[in-house]
């Protein structure tokens, strides 16, 4: 229950931050990525603000043995640069520049019931499910015959 409340309130605060910062406005996102046009550097300030808090908070929090409500921290452990990482980030960037939405602002904006964020979130959902199907098929193809999965 504690995790549920923390996550709900964090999601709420995150969305309010997105709205105030300009991230829920795809015109501003595209303006930030438009270096050859009338460049709008605002979103660098969003990232700067979020990083300022977390570069410090991360180090302070990680001095603790555990989080307040959980027995241990759940952090990513990989540190290798591989093709899926770079290829996936490249595809994501193309979609971000094309639509002006990334996942968080898309989900928050869907609450307006406006066609653009709804189409974006619907298609993003399909994209994630397609990725799951492709990976499942690959895993099935690469496991030896008779293998129990």
């Amino acid at each position: 229950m504690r995790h549920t409340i923390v996550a709900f309130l964090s999601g709420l605060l995150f969305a309010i931050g997105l709205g105030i910062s300009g991230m829920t406005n795809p015109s501003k996102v595209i303006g930030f990525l438009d270096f050859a046009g009338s460049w709008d550097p605002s979103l660098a300030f969003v990232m700067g603000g979020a990083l300022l808090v977390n570069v410090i908070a991360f180090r302070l929090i990680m001095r603790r043995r555990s989080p307040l409500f959980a027995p241990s921290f759940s952090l990513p452990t990989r540190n290798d640069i591989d093709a899926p990482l770079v290829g996936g980030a490249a595809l994501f960037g193309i979609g971000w520049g094309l639509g002006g939405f990334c996942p968080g602002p898309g989900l928050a904006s869907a609450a307006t019931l406006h066609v653009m964020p709804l189409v974006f979130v619907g298609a993003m959902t399909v994209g994630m499910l397609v990725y799951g199907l492709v990976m499942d098929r690959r895993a099935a193809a690469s496991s030896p015959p008779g293998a129990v999965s």
Partner: protein
Amino acid sequence: MENFTPFASTIGGLLIGLAVAAMLLFSGRITGISGIYRGALTGDGGEGGWRFAFVGGLVVGGLLLALLYPGAFALPEGAPFDTGRSVAAVGVAGLLVGFGTRLGSGCTSGHGICGISRFSQRSIIATVTFMATGAVTVFLFNHVL
């Protein structure tokens, strides 16, 4: 630079940063929206259904913005979400964002904020990559095509 909003953007960034820090302090988790949404989508809500709750908070936050600050979704003189891109383009964008964030294990929040704050090499490479391909895409669509 006519729509430059350094003050509001910094305040918003600080709030986003606080939300991310709270997730780490209380639950020990990275706030990667694409991963959280994927989990919620496939029925893996996690302990206490926290992934469902986070997505719910995002949507309720969006609803509050729509009611109290509709300017969050449009430029001062523009209509909401009017970027000049077609609905079809936004659909293709969604497919690429969904597939790409799964393949690349993260998006603007997980790599761009959480990962860079941890000085993760993977996240720094991912962020530089998606910023670069995003900028090239905008260049092509705004100035070439």
